């Protein structure tokens, strides 16, 4: 996919997300959004918070790669555990639809069938939901 097209779509979707109340006074935080990476901090019922990087190169021809990162943006050794976080054939990751890790693992369930039908905001909401049910 043309990177400029992917970036334009990424920027449009992030702009729309920034306008949502959950990111303005709510408990979800857009830490940074510089294509191709969107970093969002999400709350956990324990009171902990984690940053997740949604790597959106090739958006939306490919789903984002989702990893928990530290404040410097580096992938954490300690990714979430429990729930749908598990070892995949691409390494440790979230085994839930709409992540690059899931679709690389479950080739019988290709992302291409969702192409253009799932927004980045929807994927962030999905990750927030699975993080809520994981160990902090």
């Amino acid at each position, binding site marked *: 996919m043309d990177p400029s097209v992917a970036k334009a779509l990424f920027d449009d979707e992030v702009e729309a997300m920034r306008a949502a*109340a*959950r990111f303005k006074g709510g408990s979800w935080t857009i830490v940074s959004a510089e294509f191709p990476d969107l970093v969002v901090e999400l709350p956990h019922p324990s009171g902990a918070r984690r940053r997740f990087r949604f790597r959106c190169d090739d958006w939306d021809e490919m789903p984002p790669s989702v990893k928990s990162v530290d404040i410097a943006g580096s992938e954490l050794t300690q990714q979430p555990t429990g729930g749908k976080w598990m070892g995949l054939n691409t390494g440790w990751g979230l085994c839930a639809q709409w992540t690059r890790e899931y679709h690389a693992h479950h080739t019988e369930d290709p992302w291409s069938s969702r192409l*253009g039908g799932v927004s980045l905001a929807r994927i962030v*909401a999905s990750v927030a*939901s699975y993080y809520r049910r994981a160990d902090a």
Partner: protein
Amino acid sequence: MATEQQAPEQGDKNDKKVTLTISTLSGDYTHDFPEHQKLQVVIEQTVDKLELQGDGPWILEKDGVELSPEQTIEQAGLKDGDVLTLNPQEGGGGSERR
């Protein structure tokens, strides 16, 4: 954003009102709810006002904590100005890009 300050409500007219903003994937809904209103009503009203697609179930959450629809606003400890998120339960349908 859909904002509505006056609407018919169920319950005691003397109920204290609590202004809540419910943030969904299809927009935000701000409304003054009676504090004795059950959260199930908050969910249903938001789905109706924003014309959210899908059958649910819908998950209402604050600060990462899922709120029981059977609780009232007061029982859930919600305060004036609180922002809640409402999303379709994962594995279910609803509120996709239209």
